[in-house]
């Protein structure tokens, strides 16, 4: 009897061990998938041109800021950087300005077509941007929005808006409606109750979803490349110029592009989980 149980337990453990191994291996693989390129990018960006072109490769950075400094002094880079920040900033303001009220309405009011609206918000992401590029470019040229920061920001806002709506919807849903009702009975108008009670409670989350909108715009290259010529954002600028640049400059440019986005996403990661209804940890 005891032996039988012991055998059964052993078998179960034997089955469990490979499963665990597979699980761990998958995690390692996925992490490597993301981290290895970032590591190589960082190493090469921080090395001198000779080290970058040398073989075998060094896996320890030379901590030479030469490439980065040269890259930043390269004609047009700072302007492109400024454009990127400007467009991302406008995108952030528009996405939150439009998305947060929609998220609030979704969480607080019952209205016809509420479910459909939520699906439609997501569906906008299913429509490929390249399909829209040509008509959009034509329309922008006609209206004079082409090659402007505000024009590109509007396109980026449509990309960021679904996330802004869904994240803020989840944030507002986490605030009990009784808190607002209590504020109303204590002398607040709807607007005052929102400013005095709801806003302080959701502010960290709003900030996070704003940062996320910023990163979406920062990372976007297709619309930026199609819709701007003179006022290129950093991504479009790099796409245009790095092709013909030496290797070490490509690495430097890549690092300048990737690192801020990574830091931002890392800072707001817990709110991105909230978007899908997973509890904040």
């Amino acid at each position: 009897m005891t032996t039988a149980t012991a055998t059964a337990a052993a078998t179960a453990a034997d089955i469990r061990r490979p499963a665990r191994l597979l699980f761990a291996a998958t995690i390692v693989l996925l992490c490597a998938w993301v981290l290895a390129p970032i590591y190589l990018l960082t190493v090469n960006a921080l090395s001198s041109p000779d080290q970058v072109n040398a073989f075998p490769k060094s896996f320890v950075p030379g901590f030479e800021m030469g490439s980065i400094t040269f890259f930043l002094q390269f004609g047009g880079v700072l302007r492109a950087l400024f454009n990127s920040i400007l467009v991302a900033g406008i995108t952030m303001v528009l996405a939150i300005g439009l998305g947060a009220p929609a998220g609030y309405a979704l969480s607080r009011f019952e209205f016809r077509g509420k479910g459909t609206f939520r699906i439609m918000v997501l569906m906008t992401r299913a429509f490929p941007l390249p399909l829209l590029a040509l008509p959009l470019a034509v329309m922008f040229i006609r209206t004079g929005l082409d090659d402007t920061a505000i024009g590109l920001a509007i396109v980026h806002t449509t990309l960021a808006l679904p996330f802004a709506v869904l994240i803020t919807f989840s944030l507002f849903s986490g605030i009990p409606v009784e808190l607002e009702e209590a504020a109303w009975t204590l002398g607040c108008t709807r607007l005052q109750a929102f400013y005095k009670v709801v806003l302080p409670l959701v502010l960290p989350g709003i900030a996070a979803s704003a940062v996320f909108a910023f990163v979406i715009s920062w990372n976007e290259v297709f619309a930026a490349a199609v819709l701007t010529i003179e006022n290129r954002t950093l991504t479009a600028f790099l796409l245009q110029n790095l092709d013909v640049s030496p290797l070490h400059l490509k690495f430097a440019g890549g690092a300048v592009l990737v690192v801020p986005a990574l830091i931002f996403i890392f800072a707001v990661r817990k709110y991105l989980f909230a978007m899908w209804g997973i509890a904040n940890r």
Partner: protein
Amino acid sequence: MAEISIRNVAKRFGDFTALHSIDLTVEDQEFMVLLGASGCGKTTLLRIIAGLETPSQGEVWIGGRRVDHLPPRQRGIAMVFQNYAIFPHLTVFENIAFGLRMQKLPQAEIDRRVTRTAELMHIGQLLKRYSGQLSGGQRQRVAVARALAMEPDVILMDEPLSNLDALLRLEMRAELKGVLAESKTTTIYVTHDQVEAMSLADRIAVMNQGRIVQAAEPIEVYRNPAARFVGSFIGNPPMNFLPARKADNGSWQVAGVRFDGPQAEREEIAFAIRPEDLHPAEDGLPAKVRVVEPLGPHVLATCEVEGHLFRAVLDSDIRLRRGDTVKLAPMPQRIRWFDPESEESLQPHR
């Protein structure tokens, strides 16, 4: 002065009618309890008075002023919510001061009122804490203090004690009664707990399926239920009901025993008696004992009379065994009669 008057108020949610034409007057400084099972419309009625819900028809008057078109902040009310609704980003002090700051009172007055109500609710030492650092009972005290600090004409309470454990509820109940009596406000208090209702209320309005079935003093509601529902809802164990058949010269036959009853143009009506108004006697109703539960001061006997459930609360000296048949006589002045169709009381109210 804040008399509340509800006139012909109804509330419909789509096809569902939550409240049917409610008429109710609450006197100045009265403690009115709305009592009913969940889904009977009591919370909806309270929210209509507060202004958190708009009635489909009818008028709400507070202190001689029609308020049903006004937002909550202009009604001169304060409300205590079931889940307390303490603002988590503010300290206890700022929570209690919240409404006072909205009124733009001078700081000295705010300090005075917050300190006074906090002392009253015994939370003076918690003023610097946040709600996350408070127990359920302490949060409840903050919620009441926040309402009292407003010095409102009317306090509305929505099951304020239902989230507390039994012992704390008992303690808070007595405390609330004292504090509210002193504050001289008109109170409307919603609960599904009949003991809470009996112990707190000046008057109880018993609600069922969107209607007020009876609004009267607790003892009146208990002794003279206006409808069969009230008798079966209030009292633990609730009232017993037996069918009564018409016999000659105005008397009624119940399980083979004759009782003097009301004049009614019916062949059958309902006879009702509270379990504690029964005692063993030779001329009583024959009851077959099913379950005997000794409860210390008395014994609860669950019996059957002609196939109907029948409970009696008897003196614990009486020896009873399962399967016995006992004769239980009702106290004649405590017998009540109900119409079987309208379910209304057939006894003229005193």
